[in-house]
Structures are given as C-alpha cells and as structure tokens.
C-alpha cells in the first residue's frame, strides 16, 4: 500500500518534469514581469528577484532535481555494491582494508565533508554535486551489502560454483548479486532520498551552480532575497514541499522493499 503512494508521487514528478513546457507558458529563466510580484492569476506563486515566474521554476526545477537525485543514487549504490560484495566475498586482508574504509566513510559526518570538498572546487556544476555526494555517502550501503554477502557466501550454490571452478568475479556478480537485488533496490531508494536532501543543502549554501534551476537553488535565491521577511513565504514553501514529497516517496518505497527483505518488519 505504502509503496503505491510513493510510486504515484514519483510518476507525478517525472511527468511534471517532462511536460513542464505544457504546464506553464513561461520559461523558468526568462524575465516576464516586474521583480517580487505577489501571487496573482498571471503568476500563481509570484515572481522572483529578476521577475521570473516562480511556479514555472518549480515545474522546470523537477528536471534537474530528479536527474541529480537519481543519478547520484545510481553511482552511490554502485560504489556501495561493488565494495560491499568484494569486501564480504574475499574476506581476509581485502575485507579488513575495505570494511575499515567503509566504516571511516560511515562515521565522518557527510555534509561537512561535502562542504569542505565543494568549497575547494572551481567548477560547481551539477556533475560535481553528483560526484561529491556519491563519493562521500556510500558507507552505510556498503556495510549492509557486505553483511548480506557474508551470510550468502557459504550457501550451497556458491560452494557448487566454486567447485565447478567458476571465476570469483563471475560468482560475485552473476551468482550472488542477483540474490540481493531487493536489498540493492532498497539501498538505491534511500540513496536517492539522501541525494535529494544533499543537493538541496549544497545548493542552499551556494555550493552548486546556482544559475541552474533546481528546488535547492530556488531555496538559495529565496533565502538570499530574504523572501520570508518580505512575506514571500510561498517562494520557500513550494520548492521545499516538492523536496519533502519526492523524498518521502523514495523513503516509502525503500521501506516497503525493506519489509519484503525482512518479513519481521511486516505488520501481522
């Protein structure tokens, strides 16, 4: 039940991103009216400091916010999966090194690390945001996959493949991996949630390309224009609500997948 709700929200946002030009007649980056106009029939959420239509930015913002969230989630999950699988399968020295590295990334607080890395970067485009979030935040996923590998690697089918003489990499990625797809899916969905909030946080601090429109950079401009003190609460509310809704959708799906993985979490 919960996951249907999540999928519904995500599909809505994807449709919104694709059909943004049909939902509004304004371009998000185009000056269409006087700056700081209050909500009206022409501009349901008013205009920003450059007289651009805020509602059209909410629609178009879905494009980059979704792209960054999902691609960060993909990279993060890939790193977590590869490190977790190899660390758990080989054991010994390889495991000690990789799982120590995992634990280090797990405990070093993520956002401060992202801020420090981003503040040194000269190019601050979406790609940099994706890479910074992905490379600092794969720790918890890798730990979960490693422990799953530890419990799977002594099963008969793995033993059998070893006896036949399959290569280790083949066993890891073609025999064991398909058995943890649901865990990997759950990690992916929670990674996307993390990435959406990470992008919003970095953008809010001005550590991304703030000329590109995402819900995070909208909040950056709203804060810079003192939107709240000028009574323009809708400028803050709208992009934030989109972040919360999209994040909740991914959290709901991730939780539902967890319930499938771990029947104990299920309601009776």
């Amino acid at each position, binding site marked *: 039940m919960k996951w249907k709700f999540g999928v519904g929200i995500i599909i809505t946002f994807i449709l919104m991103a694709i059909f943004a030009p049909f939902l509004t007649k304004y371009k998000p980056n185009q000056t269409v009216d006087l700056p700081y106009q209050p909500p009206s029939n022409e501009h349901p959420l008013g205009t920003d400091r450059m007289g651009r239509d805020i509602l059209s930015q909410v629609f178009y913002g879905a494009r980059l916010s979704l792209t960054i969230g999902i691609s960060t989630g993909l990279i993060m999950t890939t790193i977590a999966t590869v490190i977790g699988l190899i660390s758990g399968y080989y054991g010994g020295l390889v495991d000690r090194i990789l799982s120590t590295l995992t634990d280090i990334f797990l405990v070093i607080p993520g956002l401060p690390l992202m801020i420090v890395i981003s503040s040194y970067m*000269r190019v601050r485009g979406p790609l940099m945001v994706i890479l910074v979030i992905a490379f600092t935040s794969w720790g918890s996923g890798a730990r979960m996959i490693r422990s799953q590998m530890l419990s799977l690697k002594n099963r008969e089918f793995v033993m059998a493949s070893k006896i036949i003489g399959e290569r280790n990499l083949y066993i890891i990625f073609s025999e064991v991996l398909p058995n943890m797809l649901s865990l990997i899916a759950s990690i992916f969905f929670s990674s996307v949630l993390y990435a959406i909030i990470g992008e919003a946080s970095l953008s809010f*601090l001005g550590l991304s390309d703030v000329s590109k429109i995402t819900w995070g950079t909208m909040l950056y401009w709203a804060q810079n224009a003192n939107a709240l003190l000028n009574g323009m609460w809708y400028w803050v509310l709208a992009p*934030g609500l989109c972040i*919360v809704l999209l994040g909740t959708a991914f959290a709901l799906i991730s939780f539902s997948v967890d319930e499938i993985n771990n029947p*104990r979490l299920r309601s009776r």
Partner: protein
Amino acid sequence: MKYFLNRLFFFLLTLFFALTLNFILPRLMPGDPAERVLSRFGGEIEKNAVEAMRIALGVDKDKNMFVQYGEYLKNTFTGNFGISYLHYPVSVKDVLSSSIPWTLGLVGISTVLSFILGTFLGIYAGWNRDKKSGMGLLVFSLSLRAVPYFWLAMLFLYVFGYKLGWFPLANAYSTKEQLTGLKFVLSVLYHAILPSITLIVASLGSWILTMRNNMVSVLAEDYILLAEAKGLDEKYVMVNYAARNAILPSITAFGISLGFVVSGALLTEIVYSYPGIGYQLYRAVLSQDFPLIQAIFFFIALSVLLANLIMDFVYAFLDPRVRG
C-alpha cells in the same frame, strides 16, 4: 580489553584519515592554492602577496610535501590553525573557541531530547504496529526524514518568529542591551528554543524509525510470545521484555546518526544566524576562508568521532557480549 583497543585504534585511524584529507584536498585542486585564494579578491596579484599567502596556507614551495605534512600535524595538535581571513587579524583558534560552546550546547541538548522523545515514540509505534496510530507514526517519521533541516528552520522562523513574534529572529542572546547574570541566561535560553525545536523535530524521524524497527524485530521473538502467553501485563511486556532488548541497536545507531544531526545543525544555525560553528562555516565558505574551513571540519570530525568512541564504550558496558 581487545574490544576497547580495537575501537580506540579505529578512532585514531579515522581521525588520521580526516586530518590527511584536510591536508590533501587543497593540494589536489588544480593550480596554486595561494593564487586561487588571492584571485578571489580580484585585480593584479603582487608576487610578495602570493609568497606570503603560500606560507600562510602552508604550501610553501621550498618545502616538500612531507615537511609540509609534518608541520600541518604539529600545528593541528598544538591548536595553531593560522589566521582567519574573514575575521582578520583574529586567529582561527579564537574564532573557534567563541563559537564551539554555542553549537555544543544547542546540538547537545537537542540531540538528547530528540533521542529520548523519538525512542519513546518508536516504542509506541512498534508496539502498535498493526493499529492506525502506529502506521500513522511510521509514515510521519518516514516523511520527516525527507524534510531538509534548513527548510523546516525557515518555516518555523517565519511562523513563530516573524508572523507570531513569539521568538527572536536571530542571534544567541539579546544584543540590544548589556545583560548580566540570570537575565543573560534567560536570554540565551529564549533564543535557543526555536533552533532546538527545529533540530528536535527534524531529527525525530530517524530515532522513531530505528526504535520502531528494533521493536518490531524483537516482538517476533519467542520469549515475547511466551510472556504474553503467561498472561503478563501488556505494559510490562512492552517495557521490560521488548523495549529493553530493542534499545541496544538504537544506541549504536546513535553514534552514526549523530553525524547527521551535526550536519543538520550546521544549516539550522545559518537560518537562525546562531553564532555557532555552522554559521561560522557558512561565512567561511562564502569568503573562501580556507584556514577556518579546515579547522571547523577538523573539529566537527573530532567531536563526532569522539562521540562514536564513547558510544562504543557505553555499548560494551550495556551489552557484555561485545566485550568478548
């Protein structure tokens, strides 16, 4: 004993990693860090200024990497973080010592309160997992996890500070008049209420979720079934059989989640202009104050790692099995 040494070793290793990262990052970036800093100010750059900046940044070309690294470690451990550009000529050390207490107070108290509240709600949500109230609490905590701290802070500031006028809009204490003694303390508490409510609400979701999931797992155990079959009082089973066992993993999670709370607190401080370490970091990032950024990252990492170490020790005290 081996467990304690192990944890201590991990603490030192992680700290070393954070320190090294802090050292390498400015040197990995393309170009001369000194020129990069100066180019932010615009205009022609004098050779002397570049040379002076190199020495200030510790990237002196006359010295090789290892000498630089040694000096960096020595400086860090003697508390010599250089001079802040932003607060020139105040040293980074002085900037830190005036802002760390605010963050520790705010984040410390909020984290403990949120952990306690979230754990109780989690016990409730786990116990009533089939009822509407338990399901509602679950969905509520899942969506709370998707709320960016700074956004919640902005909304609270608008509603309770600006519209209703119940709380001040900025600072950690009233700057309008000189306050002393009890009046000062009251002013500090008054200014801390809204930021700490934000932190409590924003971090509540993960505490509820962790405890709820632990509860649900424990409730599937046979000894719970037996306790119920014996006809024990429901409350008694919930607290003494289920919650007592379910809380152990929550305590491990506490250490790791602390990193998230500290991260969230950074952004919350910015919104409330609360003069803690997060607000300083924000201003340092805006003005490219690299010595200050480095030092703040070091202290954030140090405090989270220390908290983790303490949690590991507390855990060993609570659960004799891990002591080995």
